[in-house]
C-alpha cells in the first residue's frame, strides 16, 4: 500500500531524484495462491530464509570443532552466546534462562535481517511494519500467557502500582493498562521506523552524491560513509533493544516487580 502511493507521491513532487521508497517494494518471486490466500514467495520471504540459513550455518559450522581454545569463528559464536546469556541473566535472573533459546533466536534473527539490509541492493525485511508487528505481537501474547500461567489471576496486580493513594488508583490503573497494551505497538514501530528512516535517509543522501556528480560529490560521499557506519550501529542497536525489551517484559511476567 505504502509503496504504491510512494511512486505516486514522487510523481506529484516532480523531483528528478530517484524514489527513496523504491527499495521497500515487495516483489512476488514465485506466485502462489492457496484457497484464495496470496501466499507468494516474495523477496521478503527470500531474505528471511537467507537469514535463517545464515544463522544456522554460522552457529553449527562455528561450533563444529568444539575446541577448548576456540578459533576466531568459534569465539564469535561464543561471544554472541555469552552476550545474549548475560542480557537474559541480568534482566530476568536465572529463572529466565529457560527462555534463553527464544531470546537468542530473536536477537540473531533481527540482527541478521538488519545487517542483510545494509548490503547494497538487498532488501530490509524489518523495514516493514507487518513483519515487526507480527514478531512483537507474538512476544506480547507469549509473555502475557506466561504471566497468567505463573501467577494466575494475581498477574492482574501488575496493573496496580503499590504504595500510592487509593484516590489515584482508578486513574493509574487505566494508564498502566494502556501502557501495557501499547507495548507490542511501540516495540514494533521502534524497529520498523528506525530501519525505514535510516534506509530512506541513506538513499536520499546517496542521490545527492549522484546529483552533484564527479566533481562535487566527494563531500556528501564522505558523509555517506559516516552515515553508513551509523546505520550499521543502529542495525545492531535496534536488534539489541528489541531483545532487551523482550527480556524486560519477560521479567515483568515472571517476577512482577514494580
Amino acid at each position: 500500500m505504502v509503496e504504491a502511493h510512494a511512486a505516486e507521491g514522487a510523481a506529484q513532487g516532480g523531483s528528478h531524484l530517484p524514489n527513496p521508497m523504491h527499495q521497500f517494494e515487495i516483489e512476488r518471486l514465485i506466485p502462489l495462491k492457496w484457497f484464495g490466500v496470496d501466499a507468494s514467495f516474495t523477496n521478503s520471504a527470500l531474505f528471511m530464509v537467507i537469514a535463517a540459513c545464515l544463522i544456522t550455518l554460522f552457529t553449527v559450522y562455528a561450533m563444529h570443532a568444539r575446541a577448548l581454545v576456540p578459533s576466531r569463528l568459534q569465539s564469535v559464536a561464543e561471544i554472541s552466546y555469552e552476550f545474549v546469556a548475560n542480557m537474559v541473566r541480568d534482566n530476568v535472573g536465572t529463572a529466565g534462562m529457560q527462555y534463553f533459546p527464544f531470546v537468542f533466536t530473536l536477537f540473531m534473527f533481527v540482527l541478521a535481517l538488519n545487517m542483510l539490509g545494509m548490503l547494497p541492493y538487498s532488501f530490509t525485511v524489518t523495514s516493514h511494519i507487518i513483519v515487526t508487528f507480527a514478531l512483537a505481537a507474538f512476544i506480547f501474547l507469549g509473555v502475557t500467557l506466561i504471566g497468567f500461567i505463573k501467577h494466575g489471576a494475581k498477574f492482574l496486580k501488575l496493573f496496580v502500582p503499590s504504595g500510592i493513594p487509593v484516590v489515584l488508583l482508578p486513574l493509574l490503573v487505566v494508564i498502566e493498562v494502556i501502557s501495557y497494551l501499547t507495548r507490542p505497538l511501540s516495540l514494533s514501530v521502534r524497529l520498523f521506523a528506525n530501519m525505514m528512516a535510516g534506509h530512506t535517509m541513506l538513499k536520499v543522501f546517496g542521490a545527492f552524491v549522484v546529483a552533484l556528480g564527479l566533481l562535487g560529490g566527494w563531500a556528501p560521499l564522505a558523509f555517506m560513509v559516516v552515515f553508513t557506519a551509523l546505520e550499521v550501529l543502529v542495525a545492531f542497536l535496534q536488534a539489541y533493544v528489541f531483545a532487551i525489551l523482550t527480556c524486560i517484559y519477560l521479567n515483568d511476567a515472571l517476577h512482577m516487580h514494580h
Partner: protein
Amino acid sequence: MDPSAAKLIGAGLASIALVGAGVGIGTIFGNYLQGALRNPSAAPGQFANLLLGFALAEATGLFGLVVALIILFVF
C-alpha cells in the same frame, strides 16, 4: 488551500517531533558523560543503559517521522 499543499505542510509539522528526539539524545549522552567524568569507574556498567536510553529516545522522535510518512504516502 490546495489539499496536496496541506498534506505537505502537515508532513512537515509532524517531523517537528524529531526536535524532541534530538533534545532527548543530547540529554542522555550529556548526562552520561557528566556522570562518567565524575565517577569513571562506574561508567562501563551503565553503558548498556546508555544505549537503551538512546534507542528509546530516538524511537519516540521516529514515531513522529512515521506520522509524516503516513501523511505523505498513505493518504
